[in-house]
């Protein structure tokens, strides 16, 4: 007189998939949060310098980026080049024009930060030229892009 059935069908229950949506949502959220939108396709190689006093740019909508680095495409030479939006430019004097095109309505040139993303090995000549050009159009609010470094005291 056994309590237990003998010889019954031993079917393996299917894997419970009711948590699958949770996992998928989790992944979705993760990528949504961790992804930063790439504004432009970089055509120059930039290794940013680091600085202890680097501060986050708070107003992310009112920033223009100027990239200065070594061209990724070796046909473009090995000299540092300037990239604005999606183009490498050959003459830095177009920066003032570009800045005027990028002007936002209701904002003065001073309100818009120009972030300079420059490779740390680039010489100061080209950076200085860019700054002079920005001054031409009163875009004097600039930010030297650098990774935040923490020093132990």
């Amino acid at each position, binding site marked *: 007189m056994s309590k237990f059935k003998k010889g*019954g069908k031993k079917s393996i229950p299917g894997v419970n998939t009711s948590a699958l949506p949770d996992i998928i949502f989790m992944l979705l*959220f993760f990528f949504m949060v961790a992804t930063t939108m790439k504004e432009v396709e970089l055509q120059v190689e930039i290794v940013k310098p680091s600085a202890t006093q680097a501060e986050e740019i*708070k107003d992310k909508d009112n*920033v223009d980026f100027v990239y200065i680095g070594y061209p990724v495409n070796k046909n473009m030479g090995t000299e540092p080049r300037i990239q604005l939006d999606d183009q490498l430019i050959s003459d830095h004097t177009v920066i003032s024009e570009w800045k005027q095109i990028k002007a936002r309505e209701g904002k003065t040139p001073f309100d818009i930060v120009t*972030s300079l993303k420059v490779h*740390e*090995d680039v010489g*100061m000549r080209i950076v200085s030229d860019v700054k002079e050009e920005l*001054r031409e159009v009163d875009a004097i609010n*600039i930010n030297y892009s650098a990774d935040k470094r923490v020093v132990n005291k």
Partner: protein
Amino acid sequence: MARRELQEINAGSMADIAFLLLIFFLVTTTMEVDAGIGRTLPLKRDLPPIDVKIRERDLLEIWANNNDELLVEGKMIEVEELEEIVIDFYTANIKGETNPDMPAYSKITIPKCQQEIAKLTAKVEENPDDLLLKNELDKWETKLKLCEELPTKQYDEIYKMSLIRLENQSKTSYGLYIQIQDVLKKVVNDLRAEKCEEIWGKNYYSLREDDPDDQEIIKKLRILVPERIVEAKIKI
């Protein structure tokens, strides 16, 4: 032997595990942020008059050459030594004249502020469009407020023409330039933080620029520890 039928695995806590993982990743993921050192370039039009004589003692010259060597006041130094030199430039004479080779400090008192404000107001009335004058007037009004707020009713101010002059050459690397800028910013931030703690008992780094009270403090700190950097044109 008796056999038990396989039971379904309880998956009720699966969602909890999923959320736990989600939260873990949320907390540990660092997003790339656009950080950097902010600077305001001088306006093109308000170039200072050419024949302003700046005394040797009021000038800190930092010169970086094509080989990334650093020359400060004619002496070759390492970047690590720069911070101390800049701090010394700012604070050597803060407690009375002790070093005649460093910028002098002078007392700013309430009567002095009122005097300057009266003078400037008259000037502004004459040329109402002069932004520089207005700016200057605004500065003195802040100084007056500062004096009134302090228990001693006065404060010491670094000589108004004291400058840090930065000169580069064409091939000075941007990396070194940022290191120099970083040091200059650090010294000013540290000094401001110290003052902020001393006078208002607040943490400088937690001041918010969108809060009017904090904004006022930041304005006063800028007067107390001014940041005057000029960059020379690159010659070679």
